[in-house]
């Protein structure tokens, strides 16, 4: 049991890294645009299918394929923002954009079902099946590579946000949209690009998720989005550090409950933790209390 437990914790931390990546995209979009992109879950699945098509039909390595899927998902993100989010105005903008992204999710889900059906798919490569012994535990290469990829991308995102001019405009927009516009930031452009970046990280997340999880089908999107939402609420909406911590914590917790109790209840514990935190701290772990009161 002790051995299983430590294995669960290691797996949880490694898989948590991938969830952190997907959650950071979601929370970044929220921070800048004040909207919650419900389509994030199905976009991860879409990215996983893109990787699948590239690797099976064009025989492109999964990691090399990212050079195609990341830009592709970026373009899809910018397009979704341009067509469905940007035109929304008025008092109900936030709620409407949430519903719009839900509608986009439904459409993508329906299209994926039509093309790929409901059978579960897995991404395959030598590093998915091969394993390496680290400190007495057998770990699949993909867990390590996926974690490394997540770390690299999160660092790159941090660098962009805190060390570049564009990152400064993003943070300025997150703090105060009107003030950012007044000092000459093209808020619409920042919003569009942020949406693109937030969706682009799903390409990497989707690839690793598709290779590590127990397979995916279009319905997996619901499972993913509900977890991601729980993570970003727990971390505090709009907080990047919060999303990172909450992702690793929640996924590890889930793995531990898997071992100690039962896999069918681990997800309930997952949401139970969310509810408990909200009772004590409605703004989440790292959330700001009075931030963006309308």
């Amino acid at each position, binding site marked *: 049991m002790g051995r299983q437990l430590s294995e669960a914790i290691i797996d949880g931390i490694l898989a948590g890294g991938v969830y952190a990546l997907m959650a950071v995209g979601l929370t970044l979009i929220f921070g800048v645009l*004040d*909207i*919650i992109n*419900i389509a994030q879950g199905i976009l991860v699945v879409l990215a996983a299918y893109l990787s699948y098509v590239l690797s099976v039909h064009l025989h492109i390595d999964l990691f090399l394929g990212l050079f195609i899927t990341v830009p592709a998902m970026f373009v899809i993100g910018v397009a979704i923002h341009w067509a*469905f989010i940007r*035109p*929304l105005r*008025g*008092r*109900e903008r*936030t*709620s*409407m954009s*949430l*519903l*719009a992204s*839900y*509608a*986009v*999710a*439904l*459409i993508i*889900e*329906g*299209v994926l*079902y*039509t093309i790929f059906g409901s059978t579960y798919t897995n991404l395959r490569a030598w590093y998915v099946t091969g394993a390496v012994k680290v400190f007495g535990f057998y770990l699949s290469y993909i867990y390590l590579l996926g974690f490394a990829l997540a770390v690299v991308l999160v660092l790159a995102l941090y660098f962009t946000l805190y060390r570049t001019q564009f990152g400064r405009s993003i943070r300025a927009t997150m703090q105060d949209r009107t003030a950012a516009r007044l000092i000459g930031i093209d808020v619409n452009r920042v919003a569009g690009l942020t949406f693109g970046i937030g969706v682009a990280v799903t390409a990497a997340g989707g690839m690793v998720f598709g290779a590590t999880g127990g397979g995916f089908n279009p319905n997996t999107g*619901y*499972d993913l*989005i*509900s977890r991601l*939402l*729980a993570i970003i*609420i727990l971390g505090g*909406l709009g907080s990047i550090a919060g999303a990172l911590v909450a992702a690793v914590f929640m996924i590890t917790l889930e793995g531990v409950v898997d071992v100690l109790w039962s896999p*069918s*209840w681990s*997800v*309930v514990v997952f*949401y*139970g933790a*969310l*509810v408990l935190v*909200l*009772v004590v701290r*409605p*703004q989440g772990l790292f959330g700001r209390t009075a931030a963006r*009161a*309308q």
Partner: protein
Amino acid sequence: MSSPTAGPPAAGSQIPMRTLRLAGIGVALAVLIAYPFVITDALYAEFGVLTLLFVAWAVAWNMFSGYSGYISLGHAVFFGTGAYAVGLLTEHLHLTGGQIFWLLPLGGVAGAAVAVPFGLIALRVRRHTFVVITIAVFFIFQLMAYNFSFTGGNSGLSTPAFFWSPATYNNPFYYAALILAVGTVVLSWLVRGSRFGLQLLAIRDDEDRARGLGVRAMRVKLSAFVISAAITGVVGALWWFLIGQALPNTVFNPAFDLSIALMAFLGGFGTLAGPILGGLILEPLQQYVTITFTNGYLGEILLGVLFLLVILFLPRGIIPTARERLTAWRAWRERRGPQAAPIGAAGADRGAAAGPVVTGPETGTRSTPSAGSPR
């Protein structure tokens, strides 16, 4: 078939509006009561039941979300709870046939019982976090339905067989649904005109200011949430009787949450007649798509596309937009002066324009104490 509140407008302006409106409602009710005698085809009779059920649900949803501005995407929780509660009771009490209709109110009690703790937690947070929490709670309930032993897991719960004659098989369901739908609409109308309703609309416009003016926001929001949940629970229970089986993914169905919201948004979010109209349009359309196309996912894609179209091009819904157009058109008409149009036509036009303006529900901003909402 028209919604009860938007009665036939094209009569002369001599008849008082009130009489006209009552006549419209009377005609609509007569049509609804006669429907099962005219439409005897079993399939279309079932469409009628489903449409009424969804109208009731959309109106109930709107009574909370539309009036308070807190969008709930977790109302299927109450739907499923109602269905399962009544299902389990039927099983344990070994009830058969028409008896089980007496259990319907218990579906509402179950929905309300779940709504109290749900609302106490979820209504503490800001609006968009609320939406997300309703989605999360929804998934918890779906998982519980799958995993608890007493819910029947994957095989769900089935109704006992009803041995009614095939010709009128759907009638008991139809009239139960009709009573439920009409009752919900009346309740929604009463809430709209009451102090309680005004408090809800004030919360929707500016919650902090409403609180400052003495509205007990939490109590008001929670009451509306629980009322709405109770009706949804009854709808769920009746749906289970009609369909005959409750599965975790058919009663706790995420597409339901979205359909309901779409019905309200299509007709007019936060208006009285909006969700009625939306339900009357969308539910038959969805049923039609389901039976016409073999690709089961086409309905889903269509729902998504329709939703996007409504949000982009008709964001305020049919009823507020139509009313706005008519008012603008009437103003244009008056500017042009009476000599431009023949007198008879002008009279009829005034009647037509006055119809929706007077009978239609007011928008939230007009009737609230806070004057400074940004628009």
